[in-house]
């Protein structure tokens, strides 16, 4: 009998906070600037400089805490994490250690099969990012870019509550959705604004104690998280089943070779010598400050999805897809607003053609060439029967490329659907007239020929006749 294994995963997500300036200095945080132009004396750790906490970063951390139902510490403390590295200018990182600003939150996740579960958030704390070491293109030397040094991060530490890579992805996506709803992080994973470390272990199902874990560092895409975890789980199980044991260590995921590898072992483990930073007073938050932030919170994805389901009659799945991003939900809701209803039609188009085209052209919803106004204009014509769904797709494509509104395209292309019964009857009469042999065959029982007549009518009307009406009238007239 083979043993059943259970995977245990906890994630440490680093979300770069979307403040304009750094967490302890006035330098800009914009991505992609020339090396070291966004590093002032404080970021460079010059002699005599002092950190001053960015209030906006604090507000953002509190927003996250409130949105996850966490406890907001009325008093939290910044500590120094001491170690030497060239991209760490002060020789210590300022981070929250014993007393983080956010503790004890949770988020709900839904898997594709509809299963729901809750993932606990142990803590979320504020800290500064380090700079970057550059080793390529410098003739064997190393360069240091300190633009990123001092960028505010919120490190979100989950409980070891996830039991599969899929759950881990669902959780990470949910946090990704949340931080963007809250407008505290741009969520850009390519630029490293949202990344995670995964703690992975395995144990026999039913056991209480955890297995020895490995930490996989710096995963910056959902796909990598999934692949890294799956590889690591398989590695650990194989290792144990072949009589070995897992060593607690930090590993790196190599996306090209699709495997995790131990990080180059350091000469000895770092002792970070954490102690409270004497340059920063304990961060004290009062009720008024917290309540002010609570009052400013936007509608969050879960309540929004519930509203879409109950008020718009959408399925839980559709409501979940539409609320995965605040922009998508806003777009959808604007279309429904303009249409004055037709929620299901709007949902199908937003999740279907619109999302498809956006993906194809690699655009964000905010960059959509088709505005909410125009999509609503198109859907209105479907709803009132002016055009068929098939015609709508053609018009949508023209709107995407050309930028006119639906009515103008319908008129310009003469795509207005023929719904005038007598006009359709006239066309049918002409076709019956033109194909006497086929008519005779049909009437003698060759039902398959019905499709032939539909095709001829549509051809005669250049595809503009309302298909439902064509069907109905043709059946009547062929019967004689």
């Amino acid at each position, binding site marked *: 009998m083979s043993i059943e294994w259970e995977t245990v995963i906890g994630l440490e997500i680093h979300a770069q906070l979307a403040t304009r300036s750094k967490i302890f200095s006035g330098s800009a945080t914009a991505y992609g600037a020339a090396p070291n132009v966004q590093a002032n004396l404080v970021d460079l750790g010059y*002699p005599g400089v002092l950190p*001053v906490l960015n209030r906006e970063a604090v507000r953002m951390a509190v927003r996250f805490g409130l949105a996850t139902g966490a406890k907001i510490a009325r008093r939290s403390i910044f500590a120094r994490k*001491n170690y*030497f590295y*060239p991209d760490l*200018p002060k020789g210590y990182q300022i981070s929250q250690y014993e007393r983080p600003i956010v503790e004890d939150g949770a988020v709900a996740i839904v898997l594709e099969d509809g299963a729901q579960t809750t993932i606990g958030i142990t803590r979320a704390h504020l800290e500064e990012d380090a700079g970057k070491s550059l080793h390529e293109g410098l003739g064997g030397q190393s360069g*240091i870019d300190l633009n990123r040094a001092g960028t505010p991060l919120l490190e979100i530490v989950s409980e070891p509550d996830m039991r599969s890579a899929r759950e881990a992805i669902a959780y990470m996506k949910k946090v990704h959705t949340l931080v963007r709803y809250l407008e505290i992080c741009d969520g850009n994973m390519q630029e490293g604004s949202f990344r995670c470390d995964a703690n992975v272990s395995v144990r026999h199902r039913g056991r209480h104690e955890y297995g020895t874990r490995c930490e996989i560092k710096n995963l910056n895409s959902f796909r990598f998280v999934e692949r890294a975890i799956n590889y690591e789980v398989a590695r650990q199980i194989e290792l144990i089943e072949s009589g070995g044991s897992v060593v607690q260590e930090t590993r790196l995921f190599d996306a090209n070779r699709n495997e995790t590898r131990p990080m180059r072992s350091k000469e000895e483990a770092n002792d970070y010598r954490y102690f409270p930073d*004497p*340059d*920063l007073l304990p961060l004290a938050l009062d009720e008024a400050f917290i309540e002010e932030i609570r009052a400013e919170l936007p509608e969050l994805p879960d309540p929004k999805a519930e509203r879409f389901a109950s008020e718009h009659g959408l399925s839980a799945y559709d409501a979940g897809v539409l609320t995965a991003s605040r922009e998508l939900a806003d777009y959808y809701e604007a279309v429904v607003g303009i249409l004055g209803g037709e929620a299901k039609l709007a949902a199908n188009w937003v999740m279907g053609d619109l999302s498809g085209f956006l993906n194809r052209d690699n655009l964000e919803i905010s960059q959509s060439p088709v505005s909410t106004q125009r999509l609503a204009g198109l859907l209105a014509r479907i709803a009132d029967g002016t055009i068929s769904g098939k015609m709508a797709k053609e018009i949508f494509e023209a709107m995407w490329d050309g930028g006119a509104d639906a009515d103008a395209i319908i008129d310009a292309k003469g795509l207005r659907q023929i719904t005038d019964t007598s006009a359709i009857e006239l066309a049918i009469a002409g076709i019956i007239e033109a194909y006497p042999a086929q008519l005779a065959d049909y009437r003698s029982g060759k039902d398959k020929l019905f499709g032939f007549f539909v095709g001829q009518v549509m051809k005669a009307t250049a595809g503009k006749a309302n298909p439902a009406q064509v069907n109905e009238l043709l059946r009547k007239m062929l019967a004689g």
Partner: protein
Amino acid sequence: MTAAEIGRGLRAGKFTSVEVTRHFLERIDRAGKALNAFITVTPERAMEAARRADASIARGEGGPLTGVPLAHKDIFCTEGVLTSAGSRMLSNFVAPYDATVVGRLAAAGMVMLGKTNMDEFAMGSSNENSWYGPVRNPWDGTKVPGGSSGGSAAAVAARLAPVATGTDTGGSIRQPAALTGLTGLKPTYGRVSRYGMIAFASSLDQAGVLAQSAEDAALVLAAMAGHDPRDSTSVGVAVPDYAAGLGRTVKGLRIGVIGEFFGAGLEQGTGSAVREALEGFRAMGAAIVELSLPNLPLSVPTYYVVAPAECSSNLSRFDGVRFGHRCADPRDLQDLYKRSRGEGFGAEVKRRIMTGTYVLSAGYYDAYYLKAQKVRSLINADFRRAFSEVDVLMGPTTPTPAFAIGAKVDDPVTMYLNDIYTIGANLAGLPAVSVPCGLVDGLPVGLQIIGPHFAEERLLAAAHAWQRETEWHRKLPPLFA
């Protein structure tokens, strides 16, 4: 002439800032080398600032310090000028910005003469720990001037500058002031911005003044104090007009005398001078109350956990990567770190970095750092209790007058005990001032006055009252009279 007197003379048109500045630059030229009080002298800048000051005085602008020269301890960053902190590590460091203290005193119209010698990174009590060599005490060239602000003390004592800035982490203003016959003020923690002051121990460091009189200290403190948005630990308490408050009487002042400060280790002559001073205050109408602060004797060990812990972290930025000393031809990163720091730091700095690293390390943190923080709050509580009974505390500033250069260099613990009376005020963040109260064998002795938080006005008024009754602060070292 005191800074205040120079200021009055300038505004009365008796002389110009250019003349005064030239006078001090000449004195520095003649005696600066022998005392080794200055690391850098900035004559061109000084003359230019003096001309600007004269122009504003001529327009009827400026305040009591406009045109008055001063010297800065070389721990304050000064834009475009070497800022060494007395260390080989920063012997090539030209600061790219002005410390808040430097900027504020310049804005008050003061004229910087140069930067004074100091114990490396402010770690020391004798000014023997400087990469630039020891400073000599103007009262006796074979003696130390105290430290770490030894260069500032020697400069003002020898009248190479009318007044100077200093920093005080465990006594580094008060102790040298006492040993050179000056008025040395360490303000309340947070009273003066630390921005641009190279950090030794962040929770203890405070900028202050070494002056010829309480009046001078009052004027300079008023110009440098106040909240600074660049220093989160600076406090937004309004800055009073300290000079205006000097006239307050000491009649009825309740003076607490700390029993623990008069035990074994206090040199006899020093003790007698301080007791006489206390009698003087009684004669002026103050009430003397004997007090005990039972946890105060734990100050020195507490300090020598907290201060090294903070310094071990504060000095990590000196890694040879971005500024400061870098070793020649590093083989790799570890070699760069090890040799740059090994060569750049002196023995005492290394000793404290190692001590600090040890007390913060895993397994020792609770036994040392955490325990020290607990003792620190007990010491705080002792002071709070004392100030519920008395207005100020008084006692000796140092256990002995100035000692001989070289006498204690090989015995760090004996050296550390020099600060036994001064460290308490740093641990509790309290303001304290040392004023001259006598001579023992021709060497000055200081009386220390400690007050509650933000009671600088009270301290300065008491010091001023004392200085109206006595001449100790007007005595000059015979060689420089």
